């Protein structure tokens, strides 16, 4: 462990660690980082507002992403719409249990977990609660890491659309949910990027 003499944050000391490169330096208004030239802030600007805005966007996109078909398969003139949930049920009925679980976790559990955790942390910042901050920080880093894994289903659609074209008999077309879902994942990632964990600790 690196030692710290006094429990002092960079902000309390009038310093700022650059949000892009991490360089610690004195902070005055309208400054740019001495190392990388990015705008210098002690906290990400409008972190809470931006994080909420992207989270609400993601939540709105989550509705069409689950209601509309993510792809349409056509076999000999017979059209079949597949939703995300429908695809998971189909995998389960095919006895591909591990894959069904992976898709369920990636497409359903991770987005919901992300909505829940980010909104709870944003509420904690707003209310000025300081709970178990180390756990909250670790939970956020975990959510941030697993977020992009939701893209699995979008990649599966891209691959199926591309692969089945070569098969001839059947064809697969992407549905409106595919882009809604991709947009939802991107919005949750932007929400996490805008979130500043330092704000949690400022309540301590």
């Amino acid at each position: 462990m690196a030692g710290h003499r006094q429990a002092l944050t960079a902000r309390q000391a009038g310093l700022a660690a650059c949000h892009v490169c991490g360089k610690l330096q004195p902070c005055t208004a309208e400054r740019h980082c001495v190392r990388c030239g990015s705008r210098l802030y002690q906290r990400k600007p409008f972190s809470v507002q931006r994080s909420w805005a992207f989270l609400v966007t993601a939540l709105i996109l989550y509705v069409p992403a689950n209601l509309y078909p993510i792809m349409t398969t056509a076999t000999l003139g017979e059209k079949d719409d597949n939703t995300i949930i429908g695809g998971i049920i189909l995998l389960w009925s095919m006895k591909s249990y591990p894959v069904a679980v992976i898709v369920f976790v990636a497409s359903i559990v991770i987005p919901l977990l992300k909505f829940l955790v980010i909104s709870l942390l944003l509420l904690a910042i707003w209310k000025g609660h300081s709970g178990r901050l180390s756990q909250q920080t670790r939970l956020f880093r975990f959510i941030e890491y697993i977020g992009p894994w939701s893209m699995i289903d979008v990649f599966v659609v891209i691959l199926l659309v591309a692969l089945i074209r070569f098969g001839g008999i059947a064809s697969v077309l992407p549905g409106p949910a595919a882009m809604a879902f991709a947009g939802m994942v991107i919005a949750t990632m932007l929400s996490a990027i805008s979130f500043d964990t330092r704000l949690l600790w400022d309540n301590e």
Partner: protein
Amino acid sequence: MLKQNLPVDDLIACHSCDLLHDRTTLGDGEKAWCSRCGSLLYRTNNNAIEMSLALTIASLLLFLFAHLLPFLSIDIDGNKSTIYLISTIDSLSQLDNILMVIAGALFLVVIPLGVLLLDLLLLSALYSNRRPLTLFARQLLLLIGRVAPWNMLEIFLLGVLVTIVKLASIAEITLHQGFWAFVALVMINLFVSTTLEPEELWQAIDKH
């Protein structure tokens, strides 16, 4: 409120909770953690740049193999065809769904290849330590930091595996060299991302 007596260059602030710590010299391969929230502060890896450069060159070759060698064969009722990863983009472009083509091209080719090429430029500049090359190191590293979070190769690999399972009921799938090159590429990428810290690269740039 600036405390003038603080030795700013010998301090580091935790990126998760902002607490200040004294920088201590670490041995090769050691890591320093925040005493308050437990996040990683920095680490020392004496040959990080050499190793990352070697692995980046290997990744670029594997990327070419993965895209240009046969990826897999799909056999639906005797209707057999061999598929190249690069032809998925071509196949997507035949739909009138421009967003899908852009998403496919970005996540499959542009972002992963872009990050690899930027890494190659930056690491070879730092490794060779020649003046004209290091001039753009800052800009390169800033760009890498912006693009890297959107690099989803390992997630795409999982997508490939799920697709294979989904198709297994209607088609016979055979995996080829391109697929295995892709698996190796993902493994190396995961390894590089756990060894190379941006802070280490920034310090290397600072020395020039």
